[in-house]
C-alpha cells in the first residue's frame, strides 16, 4: 500500500525547520525513486498544535507519529518506517510513564481532545482544495443552498453555537437579526485579528484549514442575504493570508464562490483585508472602521453592527473558530452539535495552553471540561512538578484563577461568574514563582499600549492603575493602594466605551480578589513572595542543599556567584541584580528568594 508522509508545516513547525525536513524527504525520495516500486506521497499540512515538539511527521496509514524530526533523521525514517514497517523509538513521544507511543491517539496530549474546529488540520494540505473536497468539503454549503435561509438559521440556532471570539454571543441569533433587515447590501466578515499574546487557534485554522472558514462564511452570507464578505486577518499572519488567498482563488475557479455560488442564482465575493496591527482592531466596530479605511477605533455599540455595521449596513461578523464549526452544524444538524459540551455552552473550544505546563500547545476539548483536566491530564502538570499557583484565562484582559477553583468547568458562563472570562481561549499557567502583582502589572502595561486611547476611563484609568502597580512592584506601594485600584477598576468596567476597556481591569481585580495577601506583602512588608519583583527580592543559597555543581554561577549574568566545585556557593549581594537566573538554574532547590525588608 502506498504510504503518505504528512509533514506539519504550521508556523511553529516552520520555525523549527520543517521546510528543511520537507526538502530532505523530497530529495531523498527522488534519489531512491529509480528502484522503488511505489513512490510515497509527501503532504505538507497545517498545525498539529503540539508545536514545542515540532517538526511533526506522520506516516499514514500506519498512524505512526514522529516528533522533533531533523533533516538528518529523514533517510532513516524513509528506510525503516516508509519502505519497511519499523518504528524508530527515539523519535516517538514518551508518555508520562516513559513509554514510547506510536499514534496521536495514544499521546496523552491528544488523547483527551475532541477535534471539531480543528478536524481537518494536520490531515490535509491546506493549499490543495482537492484534499478538502475529498473529506466532504463544501457539501454543507451545497446543502445550505437547498435549504431556505430560515432553515439554515434555525439549524445554527439549534446548535447553540456561541461566538468563539470572546463575547459568546449566540451565532444563530446574530444571523437571525441580520436576516430580518430589508436593508441591502449586507455584509459578512470573518474576524481573524487574533491579538491575545499566546493565543494562536485562529491562525492555526486559517493556515491549516482555510476552506472550512470560507465555507462557514459562505453559509452565513447565504443565510442573511449578503453578496460580499471580508476576511480581516492580522497583518503578522503571513502564512494565513497566503493560504486564505489561495483558497479563495481555488474556490472561485471551481465556481464554489463568485458570480454564482455552486451553480445557484446567488452571488458571493470574498476578499482578504490585512489588519492594521492593533490589538483593538479585534473589537467588532474598530475592525469595521479599519476595513472601511478609517482609524481603528471602536464606536458606542448601542446600535449593534448587525443593524449598522460596515458602511452602516447590516453586517454579520463571526470569529474564525465560530465559522469553522458552521459546516459541521449544517452537515450533521444543530442538534448533534448541541449534544457536545454543556447546556448553555455547546460544542468544543480550542485553547492555547501555555506557560509553566509540561505539554503546551493547541488543545480542543468539549465545553465544560475542568481546568484541572486541561492543565494536569492534557498539559501533564507543572514543569518540574512545582506547585500550581494560578491560570490566567481569556487573554490580557482575562482573569487569574487560583488553585481552589481548578475544578471549575470551563465554559462561557462559569468563568465570567468568577471575574475571569473564556475570551478567545488563551490559557497561561503559572507556578509558585509567578508574582501575581507583576502579572497584573504586565497585562495592564500591555493594555495601556493597546487601548485605542479614545475614551477617558480606559486610557486614563489604565495609566493610573499601571502607575500604582508599578509602584507596588518597585517597593513604593502605599496603604490604600489596593482600595484605589478596586475603585478605579470598577469605574473603568462601568464607564468604558468598548469591551476592551470594560474587561481591562479583570487581571487587576481578580488578582486582588484571589491573591490579596501578595499585594499586602508587597505594600506592607516590602516583600515579593514569589521572588520576582527585583527591588524587593534578594537571593541566597542554602548551604545545606547546595552541592556545588556550579550551574548557578555559570548562568549568573552579573558574575555574582562564587564558590569552589563541590562546595557550597555564595551570592555577593553587592553584585547581584536579583534576576533570578540562579534559582532557575538550580536543580536542588538550594537558591531561595528572600525579602529585602526595610532595605527596599
Amino acid at each position: 500500500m502506498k504510504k503518505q508522509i504528512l509533514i506539519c508545516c504550521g508556523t511553529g513547525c516552520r520555525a523549527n525547520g520543517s521546510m528543511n525536513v520537507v526538502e530532505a524527504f523530497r530529495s531523498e525520495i527522488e534519489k531512491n525513486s529509480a528502484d522503488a516500486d511505489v513512490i510515497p506521497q509527501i503532504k505538507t499540512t497545517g498545525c498539529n498544535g503540539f508545536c514545542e515538539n515540532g517538526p511533526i511527521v506522520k506516516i499514514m496509514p500506519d498512524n505512526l507519529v514522529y516528533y522533533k524530526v531533523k533533516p538528518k533523521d529523514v533517510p532513516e525514517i524513509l528506510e525503516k518506517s516508509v519502505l519497511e514497517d519499523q518504528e524508530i523509538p527515539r523519535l516517538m513521544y514518551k508518555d508520562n510513564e516513559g513509554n514510547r507511543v506510536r499514534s496521536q491517539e495514544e499521546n496523552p496530549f491528544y488523547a483527551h481532545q475532541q477535534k471539531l474546529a480543528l478536524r481537518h488540520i494536520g490531515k490535509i494540505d491546506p493549499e490543495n482544495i482537492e484534499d478538502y473536497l475529498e473529506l466532504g468539503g463544501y457539501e454543507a454549503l451545497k446543502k445550505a443552498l437547498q435549504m431556505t435561509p430560515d432553515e439554515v438559521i434555525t439549524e445554527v440556532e439549534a446548535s447553540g453555537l456561541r461566538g468563539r471570539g470572546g463575547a459568546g454571543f449566540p451565532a444563530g441569533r446574530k444571523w437571525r437579526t441580520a436576516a430580518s433587515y430589508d436593508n441591502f447590501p449586507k455584509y459578512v466578515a470573518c474576524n481573524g485579528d487574533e491579538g491575545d499574546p499566546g493565543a494562536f487557534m485562529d491562525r492555526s485554522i486559517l493556515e491549516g484549514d482555510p476552506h472550512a472558514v470560507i465555507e462557514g462564511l459562505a453559509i452565513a452570507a447565504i443565510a442573511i442575504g449578503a453578496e460580499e464578505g471580508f476576511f480581516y486577518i492580522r497583518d503578522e499572519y503571513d502564512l494565513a493570508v497566503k493560504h486564505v488567498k489561495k483558497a479563495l482563488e481555488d474556490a472561485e475557479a471551481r465556481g464554489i464562490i463568485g458570480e454564482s455560488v455552486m451553480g445557484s442564482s446567488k452571488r458571493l465575493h470574498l476578499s482578504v483585508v490585512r489588519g492594521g496591527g492593533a490589538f483593538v482592531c479585534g473589537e467588532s466596530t474598530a475592525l469595521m472602521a479599519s476595513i472601511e479605511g478609517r482609524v481603528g477605533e471602536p464606536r458606542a455599540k448601542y446600535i449593534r453592527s448587525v443593524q449598522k455595521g460596515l458602511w452602516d449596513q447590516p453586517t454579520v461578523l463571526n470569529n474564525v473558530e465560530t465559522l469553522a464549526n458552521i459546516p459541521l452544524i449544517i452537515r450533521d444538524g444543530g442538534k448533534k452539535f448541541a449534544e457536545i459540551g454543556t447546556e448553555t455552552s455547546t460544542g468544543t473550544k480550542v485553547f492555547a495552553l501555555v506557560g509553566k505546563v509540561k505539554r503546551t500547545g493547541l488543545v480542543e476539548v468539549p465545553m465544560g471540561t475542568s481546568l484541572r483536566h486541561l492543565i494536569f491530564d492534557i498539559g501533564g502538570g507543572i514543569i518540574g512538578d512545582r506547585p500550581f499557583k494560578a491560570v490566567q484565562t481569556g487573554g490580557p484582559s482575562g482573569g487569574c484563577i487560583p488553585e481552589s477553583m481548578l475544578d471549575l468547568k470551563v465554559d462561557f458562563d462559569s468563568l465570567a461568574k468568577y471575574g475571569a472570562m473564556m475570551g478567545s481561549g488563551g490559557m497561561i499557567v503559572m507556578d509558585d514563582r509567578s508574582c501575581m502583582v507583576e502579572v497584573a502589572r504586565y497585562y495592564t502595561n500591555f493594555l495601556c499600549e493597546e487601548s485605542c486611547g479614545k475614551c477617558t476611563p480606559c486610557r486614563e484609568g489604565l495609566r493610573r492603575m499601571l502607575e500604582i502597580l508599578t509602584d507596588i512592584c518597585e517597593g513604593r506601594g502605599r496603604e490604600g493602594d489596593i482600595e484605589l485600584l478596586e475603585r478605579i477598576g470598577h469605574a473603568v468596567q462601568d464607564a468604558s466605551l468598548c469591551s476592551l476597556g470594560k474587561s481591562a481591569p479583570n487581571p487587576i481585580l481578580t488578582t486582588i480578589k484571589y491573591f490579596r495577601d501578595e499585594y499586602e506583602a508587597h505594600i506592607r512588608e516590602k516583600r515579593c513572595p514569589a521572588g520576582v519583583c527585583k527591588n524587593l527580592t534578594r537571593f541566597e543559597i542554602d548551604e545545606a542543599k547546595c552541592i556545588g555543581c556550579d550551574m548557578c554561577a555559570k548562568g549568573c549574568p552579573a558574575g555574582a556567584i562564587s564558590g569552589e566545585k563541590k562546595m557550597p556557593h555564595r551570592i555577593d549581594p553587592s553584585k547581584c541584580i536579583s534576576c533570578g537566573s540562579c534559582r532557575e538554574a538550580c536543580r536542588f532547590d538550594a537558591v531561595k528568594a528572600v525579602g529585602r525588608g526595610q532595605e527596599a
Partner: protein
Amino acid sequence: MIEITINGKKCTCEKGEFLLDVARRNGFYIPTLCHHPAISGQACCRVCLVEVVEKGRSKIVVSCVYPVERPCEVYTDSERVKEDRAVVLMLLKERAPESDVIDALCKAYGAADGSRFAAIDGEKCIMCGLCAGACAKLGTGAISTVLRGTAKKISTPYDEPSKDCVGCLSCAYICPTKAITFKDDGQTREVWGRTFEIVHCRECGAPVGTREEIALAARRAGEEPEELCPTCRKKKMTDIMAHTYGIV
C-alpha cells in the same frame, strides 16, 4: 412616542432620540465635554454618563449617544452615577490639571481624590478629539489623533508644520478645555507651528482672516476670494441691490 422617566419625572420622546437631548429638554442638566452638535458621536469623555434601568436591569450608559428605544427609568444622579463620574472626573483632572473647565466640573459634581498620582504637568488637553473632528469638517484635516493607548495625542503628520493647515482656528475654538495654543496679534497668526499672514479688509482695514482660510472658504462657496470683512461685504451687497432697484 416613548414614555420614560428621568429621576422619577415622566418624559416623552421620539424613538431613537438621544437621552442627553431628552434630559436637557426636560430640565435635567447633564454635564458634557466632548459633545458638540456639529460633531456627532464622539462619546469619549464619559462625563455625561447616566444610569438606565431597562426590564429590571441597570446599566451605565453615556447619554450623548444613547438612543432611547423603549421605555426605561433614567437616573442622572444615582449613587452609581456619582461614583463612576467622580472617578472619571478625577482621571480628567490628573490628565489636564491646568484646565479651569475640568476644575469647575470637579467642584460642581465632586471628584475622587487623585492626590496619589503625578498629574501631567502643564496639560489641558483631554484627548476628546473634537479639534480633529472640526478640522476634518470645517478645515482640511490637517490634524488628527496620532498613536494609541496612553501615548495618544493630537498632532499634525509627523509633528511637522502642516501645509494643509489654513490657520482657521476651528480646532482652538471648539476645544472644550481651551488646550490649543495660538497667537494672533492682528497682523500674523501662529498655530500648529506655522505663521499665517492676516488679511485686512480693503474697505475698512479690519482683520478678516488668514489668506489661506479666505481662499478655502471661497473655493467651497464657488466664489472668488474677496478681502472684505463681513460688515463691508454686507454693505457691498446692499449697494449692489440698491443700484439694481434704482434707489441710488
